[in-house]
């Protein structure tokens, strides 16, 4: 399957088409709006479902298989900010705190992008390690912590008032709602394994793809409402939001292979490395680095990188994986 077939296969999936529909809704100023509680409910469902499924998969596969690639994913997440920071600071001329904030977002991950990728693999009948969710779970926090430290170092400690303490950052990075749900559901799934899965499968697994499609309709609107901010972020960040994911995607795939994953798992590792957080990181950063400008990190991760990955990135990372594995 050529890269073009791969991409068009992705573009014609319900998930991506609903995402596009959401973009159109925002651009045509339709009064269609998902109430925030619905957005939260869908997020909770997706995170719990993917976490639980991953936990069961770990119970099935055994931790022995999982720990090495999981560790690799974690380290990669922690390292990414270390090179993105200077790129932003000196290449993009961003202030220390803004560079650190953006770096944290690109080191962390987007659960929805990951989920969309698993859907894509399912659609093209490409098997993958179900326990890959574990990588998602461990990759979310490290980059946030590294980013906050970079930001604090970059700004005179005195600058920040007591409420934006490192403690806040650590608490958010470990107990923030998305991380907590994901890790928690993963542990629950791990503990109850297959028998537990049989009980809840018809709620957490069967309707999953449909729920994702509905959620991406909303995400399309959310991203679409921010397209206007693109001019605020400037050409550098636009380029950064597309080029960096491609680089990180390749690194992720390569690392996945080195860590002994199959084609599917390596693709997902690439997707994780390439994705930028827009739930966990913004919350943690806003609370612990309030001097960073959200217009930069939110717009780039939400209005540039997220749509790019959903539409084009995922099949591209898969092609990269194919190239690595054949």
């Amino acid at each position, binding site marked *: 399957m050529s890269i073009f077939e791969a991409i068009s296969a992705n573009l014609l999936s319900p998930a991506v088409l609903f995402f596009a529909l959401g973009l159109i809704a925002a651009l045509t100023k339709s009064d269609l*709006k*998902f109430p*925030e509680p619905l*957005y*939260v409910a869908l997020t909770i469902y997706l995170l719990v479902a993917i976490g639980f499924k991953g936990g069961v998969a770990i119970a099935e596969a055994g931790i022995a298989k999982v720990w090495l690639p999981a560790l690799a994913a974690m380290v990669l997440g922690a390292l990414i900010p270390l090179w993105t920071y200077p790129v932003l600071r000196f290449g993009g001329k961003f202030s220390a705190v803004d560079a650190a904030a953006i770096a944290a977002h690109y080191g962390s991950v987007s659960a929805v992008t990951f989920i969309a990728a698993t859907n894509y693999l399912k659609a093209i009948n490409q098997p993958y390690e179900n326990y890959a969710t574990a990588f998602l779970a461990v990759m979310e926090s490290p980059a946030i912590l590294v980013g906050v430290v970079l930001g604090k170092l970059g700004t005179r400690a005195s600058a920040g*008032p007591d*409420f*934006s303490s490192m403690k806040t950052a650590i608490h958010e990075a470990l107990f923030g709602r998305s991380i907590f749900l994901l890790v928690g559901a993963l542990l629950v799934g791990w503990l109850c394994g297959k028998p537990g899965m049989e009980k809840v499968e018809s709620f957490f697994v069967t309707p999953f793809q449909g729920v994702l499609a509905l959620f991406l309709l*909303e995400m399309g*609107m*959310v991203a679409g*409402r921010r397209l206007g*901010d693109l001019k605020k972020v400037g050409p550098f960040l636009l380029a950064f939001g597309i080029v960096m994911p491609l680089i990180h995607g390749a690194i992720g795939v390569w690392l996945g292979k080195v860590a002994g994953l199959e084609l599917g798992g390596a693709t997902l590792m690439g997707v994780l490395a390439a994705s930028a957080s*827009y739930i966990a990181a*913004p*919350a943690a950063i*806003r*609370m612990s680095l*309030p*001097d960073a400008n*959200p217009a930069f990190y*939110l717009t780039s991760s*939400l209005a540039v990188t997220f749509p790019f990955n959903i539409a084009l990135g995922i099949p591209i990372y898969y092609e990269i994986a194919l190239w690595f594995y054949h």
Partner: protein
Amino acid sequence: MKTHPMKLVTIVCEAYAQDAVTKLLHEVGAHGWTLFSVEGDGSQGKRPADIREFANIQIEAVVQPEVSERLLERLAKDFFPRYAMIAFESDVRVLRREKF
């Protein structure tokens, strides 16, 4: 019936400032607060509350005049430079002075 003059301080800010603001209210000596989930528009752009990142809250606190003074000072110093936010003060009358 006998009422007592108090100050009502109203703060509108982004949802992520909630913990910091309520912590501050406690520090400066407010004995309670009421929180509203709101949408808004201002100098920093629309906040349609579609996702938490773009949600607003309004916090109202009935306080003694001197508390209001301290509160506004701290807001101006630590919060205004960092958050999408406004704050204003008005005069209200309450029945149970001791409560505030």
